[in-house]
């Protein structure tokens, strides 16, 4: 069964996805933390998968409500693996050179307490609005 049969279907789907994303971004729903892991060849080669798996299990262990998504290359190939953490109501922060130790630190300090840790990659471009 095809899910989108017409323009209206597409628009409806866009709307609903947008809402979901917005909800996630604004973190209105019970202070959801969002973590994106750059999973392109560079990232994976540098160990992004391991980091993501580790963070997922660690946050779960600690009972933290974190949504993980994989995404494509963020462009910071020099600092792979890179992850982007968005705390409710905050600008996204990108961390580079994330190994398991750094992942622990990010969970313990930034995700838990909003305390920044070293390894931030300053974002140097604007996102265009669709």
């Amino acid at each position, binding site marked *: 069964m095809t899910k989108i049969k017409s323009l209206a279907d597409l628009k409806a789907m*866009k709307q609903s996805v947008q809402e979901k994303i917005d909800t996630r971004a604004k973190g209105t729903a019970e202070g959801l933390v969002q973590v994106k892991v750059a*999973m392109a060849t560079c990232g994976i080669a540098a160990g992004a998968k391991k980091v993501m798996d580790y963070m997922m299990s660690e946050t779960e262990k600690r009972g933290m409500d974190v949504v993980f998504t994989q*995404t494509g290359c963020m462009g910071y190939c020099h600092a792979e693996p890179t992850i982007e953490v968005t705390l409710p109501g905050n600008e996204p922060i990108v961390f580079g050179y994330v190994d398991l130790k750094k992942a622990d630190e990010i969970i313990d300090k930034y995700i838990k307490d909003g305390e920044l840790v070293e390894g931030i990659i300053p974002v140097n471009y604007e996102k265009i609005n669709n």
Partner: protein
Amino acid sequence: MHLLVCGGTGCNASRSQEIAANLKSSLKDNGLENEVQVILTGCFGFCEKGPIVKIMPDNTFYTEVKPEDATEIIMEHVVKGRKVTRLLYTDPENKQHVADSKHMGFYKKQMRIALRNCGYIDPQNIEEYIGADGYAALAKCLGEMTPEQVINEIKLSGLRGRGGGGFPTGLKWEIASKNHADQKYVVCNADEGDPGAFMDRSILEGDPHSVLEAMTINGYAIGATIGVIYIRAEYPLAINRLLVAIDQAHEYGLLGKDILGSGFNFDIELRYGAGAFVCGEETALIHSMEGLRGEPTFKPPFPAQSGYNKKPTNVNNVETYANIPIIITKGADWFNKIGTEKSKGTKVFALAGQINNVGLIEVPMGITLREVVYEIGGGIKGGKEFKAVQTGGPSGGCLTTKHLDTPIDYDNLLASGSMMGSGGMVVMDETSCMVAIAKFYLEFTVEESCGKCSPCRIGNKRLHEILEKITKGNGTMEDLDNLRNLGRVIKDASLCGLGQTSPNPVLSTIENFYDEYVEHIKDKKCRAGVCKSLMQYVIDQEQCVGCTACARNCPVNAISGEKKMPHFINTELCIKCGACIEKCKFNAISIC
């Protein structure tokens, strides 16, 4: 509150560590060490104005901060909440201080159009793509536009092929649409073979649906119902993501029969490349798709007339396609305001080599090399001297300090003896020998030449041999003339784009680094210390303490000497591997 101090190489060299330390101690003095944290970050990519200190959450951006400014920042900004105006960034145009870094022009240096979704959405979730306005362009085309209107929009946008040559995309589509046939094809060239370029891979891995959507639009515009993606087999992840995306698009009715109820059918299949750079050339690519040796054929006929299976075929590369959906949704007028007069939009570059921020960047056409290297790229690694940037890979040439302020677009690059190519940008410092670089690229071309036409098959081999001779110290001045003549003839007389551009690395380095060639030939010297035959390793008898580390690590036992006595290198035996230099703790070994 957080104080972010740039810990990038450039800023580090300008004592950013010291700044951080001073900030911390000043905070302590004020008893704020628990409320405010000082964090060292990666490079802000704004090294010209470094060191940088950024205050969060108010986004204040202090530039050219010195260690002694730390106290003032704490006292004024943190304690009293007043910005330190003199350290704020000054907008070069209106000379105004910019308090909020969001308003700094610097952040507009990069503009992500083709990469708009890379790093934002989950590439394996079509719903996220739809949420990011994905497939809206397709819906617009199918629902509101005629094929002619679609082509016209692309023509108006001024988009040019991002794969190398820069042929106007709209015009290409128009030619293919005007050739009538019972079957036409749309082909996405994802055989990114340029060593040092990986933007296509990143797009396919990060945003596969944008390519699928664009190909479908392309199919609608020219009247094709089958799309083929020709992708390098060396990109397993990209292949995987594409396969998932194609499945999802089918499932959601965005590929297949009667898309969005429009009656338009379109399907996409994959074909795998098998490691032949020449297959980036569209006629070679088509032969490879047909299961043959990927040898190019003479054009005309163009693929738009007779391509895959002898049917009209439109070939575009990945990055070109990634631009299409957003041009349709935002309109040609939006797109053609970006870039320069003849090169519209943005270009993705893979910044690599001796540069701090190796990575994928997307910049508007017309940006200068200086901005790319020193601002976005964070400058040269280890604070070394910038020497050249190689663009366009084996088809391109080198740009040097004199080109630092030339706006980058198709025509300017061509005029400076290089080309846009697929967008590899390899930055080189003084440790790169330009003769060796030319040789490196020629080695590549010799290996990748298909062998069909004589200038490329034999000519490039000869170019490589002459370069080899020069790097071995056996060159003559006559060789330079031969390189030039041969290079010109190969460009002029070769069958396809590979041969027509393969001498560029040689010709442009001769043009820009003539002295370095002459040094190799006349003085038998390689200033970068790369050409082994021209080097000799010597142990400084004063510096050497006789620790024997070098001798123990020499793979060919060329180093001798008594313990605690200065050592010697037997230059006859030495293979110039450099192992001794790496092991010497006393800087006693040098190359001359």
